[in-house]
């Protein structure tokens, strides 16, 4: 937590004059922005003409809030953010925090396993849980590409779409079951991952990001326009629901409920879906953790740190990047197949750029490369967003504010430090200052 070179004289940060100046500038910007947005209100009059009136009181209130808020934020920053200050936390507190941190992941996992038991009657919570877990899985998948290999991918939703459409089309046209299609969806998505990987190998940074963004759009536009195969904007409907390894979850005589001699309830299917996505997400997590400790995972991280040094050590950077793309895409494909079977209906509308941006935000917010961080971020982004539902039209505003505050407080994500993959005596976490983000 402590910085390397403390300046005792500046320990409290800049003075009052600086804070006031900053607040004044913020207020001025707010005045310019809000004078038209809030200061003047326009409406169509009864005869179709434009009526407008001024709202200077509201404008003044907004500017005052920005002024006051700016001062508060600046003061908070000086207390919380590491601005040249050495904060001394008592050893006992540090130990307690370390124990808490170690317990966090197992406790979260046990709680997740128990969610369908605790909230069995609450369909809303179960659905939300499934949604959060889907994004946890997507986040973990993208984490391989962005967090470990340091390749900025803005088109991740393309692989999600490939997985979803693979399952939907194979199931509706050839009658393949979910369990047969799941690996196929993964393989097809990985294949498209490699296909995307080849042309972008020589690109770095922003250029790579733009091409991946375009790739995501290409897949979506192809799906919209290839009407004969994908049904275009109408999507694919009547996608088979998953079966319990061949036994359907239906009220009929051959259904699981009848076989187990219990009363049928539609909740059974939701609970099954919950455990299905949990299993898929945990598979993603397990594979990623294993890969990190294998030479390929170390090569990904080394690639993020310094590509030139990798080449000098005889690492084939081409295949290393391609495997990162393929692995990430495969998990996206699995998640897509799950999405299709859960919804029963898919259309191109589900695979817009916004989804890519959301998953990327989860990875960045979680702390690039951290598995636990990504899970927490997915919970915050998806669950937290639902939490603010009561705030109606202010939901986005509050959510945005929360994100800004979080990024000020934790610029490198919720869990920014990196855990070594191998150690001789002790495994120390590596500070986020040293870990590179990659250049694409």
């Amino acid at each position, binding site marked *: 937590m402590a910085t390397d070179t403390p300046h005792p004289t500046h320990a409290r940060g800049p003075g009052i004059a600086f804070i006031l100046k900053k607040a004044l500038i913020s207020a001025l910007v707010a005045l310019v922005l809000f004078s038209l947005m809030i200061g003047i209100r326009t409406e169509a009059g009864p005869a179709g003409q434009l009526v407008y009136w001024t709202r200077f009181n509201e404008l003044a209130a907004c500017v005052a809030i920005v002024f006051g808020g700016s001062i508060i934020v600046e003061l908070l920053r000086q207390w919380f953010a590491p601005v040249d200050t050495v904060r001394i936390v008592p050893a006992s507190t540090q130990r307690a925090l370390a124990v808490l941190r170690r317990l966090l992941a197992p406790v979260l996992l046990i709680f997740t396993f128990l969610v369908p038991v605790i909230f069995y009657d609450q369909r809303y919570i179960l659905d939300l849980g499934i949604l959060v877990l889907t994004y946890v899985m997507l986040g973990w998948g993208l984490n391989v590409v962005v967090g470990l290999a340091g390749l900025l991918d803005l088109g991740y939703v393309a692989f999600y779409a490939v997985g979803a459409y693979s399952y939907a089309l194979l199931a509706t046209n050839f009658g393949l079951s979910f369990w047969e299609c799941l690996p196929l969806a993964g393989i097809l998505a990985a294949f498209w991952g490699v296909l995307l990987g080849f042309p972008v190998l020589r690109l770095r940074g922003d250029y790579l990001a733009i091409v991946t963004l375009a790739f995501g759009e290409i897949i979506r536009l192809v799906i919209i326009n290839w009407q004969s195969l994908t049904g275009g904007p109408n999507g694919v409907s009547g996608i088979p629901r998953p079966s319990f390894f061949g036994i359907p979850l239906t009220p009929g005589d051959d259904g699981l409920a009848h076989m187990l001699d219990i009363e049928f309830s539609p909740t059974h299917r939701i609970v099954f879906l919950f455990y299905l996505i949990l299993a898929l997400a945990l598979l993603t997590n397990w*594979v990623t953790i*294993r*890969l990190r400790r*294998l*030479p*390929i995972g*170390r*090569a990904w*991280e*080394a690639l993020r*740190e*310094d590509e*030139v*040094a*990798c*080449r*000098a*050590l*005889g*690492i*084939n*950077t081409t295949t290393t990047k391609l*495997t990162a793309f393929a692995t990430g895409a495969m998990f996206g494909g699995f998640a897509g197949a799950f999405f299709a079977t859960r919804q029963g209906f898919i259309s191109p509308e589900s695979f817009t750029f916004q989804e890519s941006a959301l998953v990327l935000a989860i990875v960045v917010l979680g702390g690039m490369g951290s598995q636990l961080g990504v899970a927490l971020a997915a919970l915050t982004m998806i669950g937290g967003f639902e939490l603010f539902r009561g705030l109606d039209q202010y939901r986005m505003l509050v959510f945005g504010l929360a994100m800004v505050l979080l990024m000020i407080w934790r610029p490198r994500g919720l869990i920014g430090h*990196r855990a*070594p*993959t*191998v*150690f*001789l*005596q*002790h*495994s*120390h976490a*590596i*500070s986020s200052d*040293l*870990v*590179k983000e990659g250049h694409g």
Partner: protein
Amino acid sequence: MSGTEILSVDGLSMRFGGIVAINDLSFTAERRKITALIGPNGAGKTTVFNCITGFYKPSSGAMRLSHDDGQQIRLERLNDFRISKLAKVARTFQNIRLFPGMTALENLMVAQHNVLMRASFYTVLGLFGVPSYRAAERQAIDLARSWLDRIGLLERADDAAGNLPYGDQRRLEIARAMCTEPALLCLDEPAAGLNARESAALSELLLSIRADHGTSILLIEHDMSVVMEISDHVVVLDHGVKIADGSPQQIRDNPKVIAAYLGADEEEAIAVMESGT
């Protein structure tokens, strides 16, 4: 034919547009010897290195590497990572290029990538933790541990490489290059930024690498105390052309070399030398 030389560079030229960085350079590096490449700033030393290690494709010329078993490899026909993987040429960089966010141990593990990849059957079997991979990984850790011990960084094995002091980073980069088990080790200014004591320790390390592993070393260096102490053979470059070639003693007395370093005419240099003796 494989004889005593490990690397023979023949008529190497490198042009960037109209600029001739290296012009028709020929020299050889002896097996199990330390060859130093010296010259004033901008003489083209690092360009030679980049050609040998595949970062640049030379405009013309041949570079032959002969392994102990007599196998000959034409370096100009390989590129990129293959030079390190197949030809067993390892290098370090003038401005240190470690993986700063990884621990010292992890840095040395990444260097053993190709060995471990084969042991893990290209990840497939490694994913399930087969015993043969575990054994290979333990061996890799042992090799890394022995190198960390050798460069005096065993205590700091689990610290981030970016957190190590400058001198330690330099030594760690050499250890990392050695973990690829190279036949030829190319060091680009290993003593830059080191103090006198650290330079002496570096000289010792390089001599011990040559003695214990039979690795041939090609060295770019400005620190003349290091060059004169450890090299068996010195090649002097100026403006992309070889101006002298010989033992450290011969180079020390060569008026052309002194002139190049002092930026003076040859006659003046001779005059300076004569007045000095």
